[in-house]
C-alpha cells in the first residue's frame, strides 16, 4: 500500500507544524498550505488523498475551498475534514454541500486528528474498492 498524501491547510504556523508532525510520525506524506488559494492550487497539482483545512484563512475560507474542489473533476473526490474554532459558524447544509466529512473543534487533540484521518481514509478506501 502506497503512502497516503495529506494536505494540511492552516494560516496558523504552529497548528500546521503540530498536525504535520503528528501525521508524518504516523507514516503519512504531508504537504502544507498557509491560505485557501495555495491549498486549492496544491489540491489540483498534488491530488492529495485527504485535505485537512482550517475554516478562517486568508483569501479563501476552508468552506469556500471545499466548494471550489467539488466544482472540478480533478479534485471533486478529495475527501475533506475541517479543523476549526468556528464550527458553530457553519451550517450543516453548507457542510453537506461542500462534502466535508468531519469537523474537529479547536482546541483539538492531535491523537484524535490522527484517529479521524485513519477512519476517513479507511472509509474512503473501502468505498473505492
Amino acid at each position, binding site marked *: 500500500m502506497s503512502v497516503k498524501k495529506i494536505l494540511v491547510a492552516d*494560516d*496558523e504556523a*504552529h*497548528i500546521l*507544524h*503540530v*498536525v504535520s*508532525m*503528528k501525521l508524518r*510520525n504516523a507514516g503519512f506524506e504531508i504537504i502544507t498550505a498557509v491560505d485557501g488559494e495555495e491549498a486549492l492550487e496544491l489540491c489540483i497539482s498534488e491530488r492529495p488523498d485527504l485535505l485537512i483545512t482550517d475554516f*478562517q*484563512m*486568508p*483569501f*479563501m475560507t476552508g468552506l469556500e475551498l471545499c466548494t471550489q474542489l467539488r466544482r472540478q473533476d480533478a479534485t471533486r473526490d478529495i475527501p475533506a475534514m475541517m479543523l476549526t*474554532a*468556528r464550527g*458553530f*459558524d457553519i451550517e450543516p447544509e453548507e457542510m453537506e454541500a461542500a462534502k466535508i466529512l468531519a469537523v474537529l473543534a*479547536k*482546541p*483539538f*487533540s*492531535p*491523537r484524535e486528528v490522527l484517529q479521524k484521518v485513519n477512519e476517513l481514509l479507511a472509509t474512503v478506501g473501502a468505498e473505492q474498492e
Partner: protein
Amino acid sequence: MTTAKRVGLTGLAVVALGGCAAYYAAMVIAYKPDAPDARLGYLIPVMLASLTVMILVGFQRQVHRSAGSIGNQLKQLKESDEVGLIEVSDGEELVSVATPLNEYLLSIRKNMNRLRSENRELQIQARIAAAEKHHTEAIIFSISDAVIVTNRFDELLLANDAAEKLLGFQLSSAVRKNIDRIVSDGTLVRLIRETRSHGSSFTRKVVEHSIDSKGTPRTFSITLSCIVAPDEEVSGVVAVLHDVTREKDIARMKTDFVSNVSHELKTPLASIKAYVEMLMDDEAEDEATKAEFYEIISTEADRLHRLIENILNISRIESGVVKVVREPVSLPGVVKQVLDVASPQAKLKGLKLFSHLAPIYYQVEADHDMIYQAVMNLVSNAIKYTPQNGQVSVTVGVDERRGISFCEVSDDGAGIAVEELPHIFDKFYRIKANNKLAKGTGLGLTLVKHIIETVHDGKLSVTSAEGNGSTFTFELPVIN
C-alpha cells in the same frame, strides 16, 4: 300717599269748598234778597270745575314725573350693564308698579349673578384645560421617539417632530386626515387600525418593525395603546416608535465580538493543548524538538495573555477604572522599543521598515506602557495589512508652535475605503475586504483611540485611500 287717598282728600276738599260756597250764597240771599242770584248760580259750578281741573293737572304731573324718574333709572341701569332696583319715594305715584318691577329685577339680578359665577368657573376650567393640553403637547413634542396620535376614525390628531421626520409629513397639513393618506408604511397603518378595532380589551402592545427611512432601514419597537374614553369606547390610538437600530447593532456586534474573541482565544489555546499532548505522547524525537515544543507552548501562552489583557484594557478604559501612571516619556524612545520588537515580523514578510525619529529631548507626559501599546498596535496593523515588498515608515516629530509631539505610522498597503473610514475606530469593527489579509478582534484601533484620546487627551487621525496605504497620526502635548 297713594292716588286713592289723594282722590278721597280732593273729594273732601271739593265738598268743603262747595259747602262754603253754598253757605256764602245762602247768606247773601238772606241779607240782600234782591241781589241778582244768577251770577252766584254760575260761580259755584265754575269754581268746582276749575278746582277739579287744577287737581287733575297736578295729579297728571305727579304721575308723569314718577314715570320719567323710573325711565331715567332704567336707562342708567342699561348703561351700567347692571341689574339694580328702581327707587320710588313713598309719596310718588306708580309705587304699585315699581314694587313688583323691583321684585322682578331682583330675581333677574340673582340669576345673572349665578350665571356670571358659573361662567367664571367655566373660563377657569377652560384655561386649565388649555394649559393641560399645551403641557401634554409639550411632553409629546419633547420626546425623541416618534409619537403619533389618531382619533376613532383613524385620523391624525397629533404628531411630534420625530414622527414628521420619520414618516415624512407636515403635521399642519396632515392633521385630521386619515392615516392611510399620510403614512406610506402599510404595516404601521395596519397596526394602528388593528389596535383601534380591538378596542378596550386590548389596550397595549409592542411590535418590532423595520421602517425604511430615506433609504436606510431602521428597526423600531412600536408601542401601540388605545385611548379609552370614560364610556369605555375607544377614542383613538397612540403609537410610540422607539428606534432600536443602535441597540440591535450593538447586540449583533457583541455576538460577533464574543465569536471573534473566542476564536482568537482558542487559536493559541489549540497550540498549547496540541503541543502538550505531543510531548505526553513522546512525539518529539529529540531534545531539540522537545525544547522547541516548550518554547511554542510558552509563546502561545504569552499570546493568550496579551489577548486577554487587550480585551480587559478596553473594558477598563471604557468603564473608567484604568490605572494611569503619568511620567515624562520620550516618544522616539517608545517608538524605538516597538520597532525593535516588530522588525523581525516585518522582515519575515519582506517589508521595508523606515523610521524618522526627532531628537530625544522632547518629552510628553504619558503612561509609558499604554503609549507603547498604542504604537505597537499601529505598527503591527501596518505590517499586517501591507503585502510583501511593501514599506512601513514611522515618523516622530515636534510642532513647536503648537507645542505637540506627533507620531505618524504610514504604509503603502491595502488602505481603507472612504465609507469604512468613519467606523474603523468602532469597537469590534473589522473591514470585510481586509478580513482575508489578517486576523484580528477589531479591538486594536479601538484601544489606540482610547489610549490617545480618552486617557491622554491627545488626538488620533487617519488618512487613507483604498489600495494606496494608510497613515495614522497621533499627537500629544509636549512638556515645556
